[in-house]
């Protein structure tokens, strides 16, 4: 279904336009053609605003310091010396920070998908007695703001019951990914949309709840898992505040913390810093290039509201 709707969008003539506010018969009218042109123009400008800052930073990274502050300013650098990338890569030992970020991502992916997914499944399908309370509480926590960062930080300094100090380890960030109300609801709504008849049939064949989850729900859930995975990967890669508080000044600092610390450091020049910034963005662009087509499809089937 998802594949089909993606294909359906690939139209480029007004005569094929059957969806949306304006259809093919409206598009014959001249005033709607103007409206359409205006909308196109606005979207085009907006797409430029979305692209230009990043591209500019990427280009400026290749400039020399004197080029950066030259009057009159130039857009393109005089030369593209890709050796510079290797230079800064080594200078800041980017590989270490990349590795740390990957460690964070692996754990967060696991907790985010397994724990939130299971919860969404139970709330949607199994509905044990009293799970409605849990569902309401989860929905509320999506809208509730936390009370400063202190109580949570205290929790990690001295975890209740087991009294362990988790500051300086990846675990707090992993745990936080496992209590994501938004994703629980995303999963729940997705599972709600799966036809009940599968469940009936599986029950008749003597399938257990867990077996049903593994053999029927999981294969069907690929689109929503993809969406949550992309959110989780990009979110964790850019997660700054908590990793800064928990992993800051340890050997486990991820890339986002490194970016912030470099921004206030005197040991790096502006152009090198811009290159570092681009290096840190590129992995996400690659992830996006691979998975982008899943994002829209997954959201259509699992939208939290509406």
């Amino acid at each position, binding site marked *: 279904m998802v594949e089909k709707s993606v294909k359906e969008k*690939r139209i480029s*003539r007004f005569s094929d336009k059957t*969806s*949306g*506010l*304006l259809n093919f018969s*409206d598009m014959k009218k001249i005033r*709607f053609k103007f409206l*359409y042109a205006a909308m196109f123009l*606005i*979207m085009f400008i*907006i*797409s430029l*605003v*979305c692209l*230009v*800052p*990043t591209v500019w930073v990427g280009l400026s990274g290749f400039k020399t310091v004197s080029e950066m*502050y030259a009057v*009159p*300013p130039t*857009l393109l650098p005089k030369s593209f010396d890709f050796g510079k990338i290797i230079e800064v890569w080594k200078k800041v030992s980017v590989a270490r920070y990349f590795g740390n970020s990957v460690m964070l991502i692996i754990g967060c992916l696991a*907790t985010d998908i397994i*724990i939130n997914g*299971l919860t969404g499944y139970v709330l949607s399908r199994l509905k*044990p007695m*009293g*799970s409605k309370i*849990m569902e309401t509480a*989860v929905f509320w926590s999506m809208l*509730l*703001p936390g*009370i*400063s*960062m*202190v*109580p949570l930080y*205290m*929790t990690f300094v001295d975890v*209740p019951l087991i009294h362990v100090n988790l500051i300086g380890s990846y675990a707090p960030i992993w*745990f936080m990914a*496992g*209590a994501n*109300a938004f994703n629980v609801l995303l999963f729940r709504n997705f599972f709600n949309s799966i036809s009940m008849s599968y469940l009936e049939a599986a029950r008749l064949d003597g399938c257990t*709840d867990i077996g049903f989850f593994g053999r029927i729900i999981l294969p069907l859930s690929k689109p929503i898992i993809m969406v949550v995975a992309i959110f989780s990967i*990009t979110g964790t890669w*850019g997660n*700054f505040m908590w990793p800064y508080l928990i992993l800051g000044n340890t050997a486990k600092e991820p890339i*986002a913390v490194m*970016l912030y610390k470099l*921004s206030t450091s005197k040991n790096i020049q502006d152009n090198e810093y*811009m290159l570092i910034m681009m290096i840190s*963005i590129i992995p996400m662009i690659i992830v*996006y290039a691979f998975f*982008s087509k899943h994002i829209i499809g997954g*959201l*259509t089937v699992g*939208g939290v*509201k*509406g």
Partner: protein
Amino acid sequence: MSDKINKRKISSIIKHNASGWALLIPSLILFVMIVWRPILIGITYSTFRLQGFTPVEFVGLKNFSDVLTDTNFIQTLKNTVAYVFWSLVIGFPLPFICAVMLNELVHMQGYFKVTTYLPVIIPSIATCLIWRLVYMDGEGGLLNMMLYYLGISPMGWLSNKNMVIPLIIVAMSWNTFGSTLIMYFASLQGINQELYEAARLDGAGFFNRIRFVLLPHMKGMLLLMLIRQIIGVFNVTEQPLTMTGGGPNNASMSLGLTNYFYAFKYGQYDKSLALGVITFLMLLVLTFIYFGLDKRIEE
């Protein structure tokens, strides 16, 4: 006989419930540990004097009065409201309008989808730092570079106390714009086409179709996004911290950043908790309003 069946039924119900709750345990533990318990702890400890993280003496509302009478509190509250105001002006309508427009386009729709989503995959910390460079004073910044070609001499951007909040909001909106847009877009795709056809047959023009078909469908989602955005921006911390550090002269200081400074710069955890409770209560009102409105919309 019937007794036996009953017993089997009961035991299967118990088994079903038990396996359901067993699967919920990890999630329950994490939600209690990370979301719900900290709220309760925060509220209780905010009435204590803390030494490190241990409460040593019950002080009633002293922490609260300390926070409220701080000379900067009113200014910070005003700034925070300004953040929310600007984010509603700049960041709220734009993704919705763009989603509606994108849904109409048949030319280059794929290109627009990809380009508008690109800022979303850029980490928010990198966004702040990129925009700090865009706003950079002197000829090196992108905005001043553009001004140069328009024949205008370079200006200070983030160092201008009247502009700093809207400028930070522009950077934030730029970062989140695409993800909100795509959610609206997905929801727009779910509108039943027959409703449009019916409206068209009734002679409804462009704006009436928006009013009678599109908006009613999107109302619930718009409300949810609105509340989430207000709550999110009210807590803004990271962006002023990384872009301005609260400056110039506290002009971009938010409640969230004050809170962060109390806790992790000055070590005044009790004051941080009190301020946290104050913001929490303000936003709780908003959450209640949301549930009230949401009920009305669903009906």
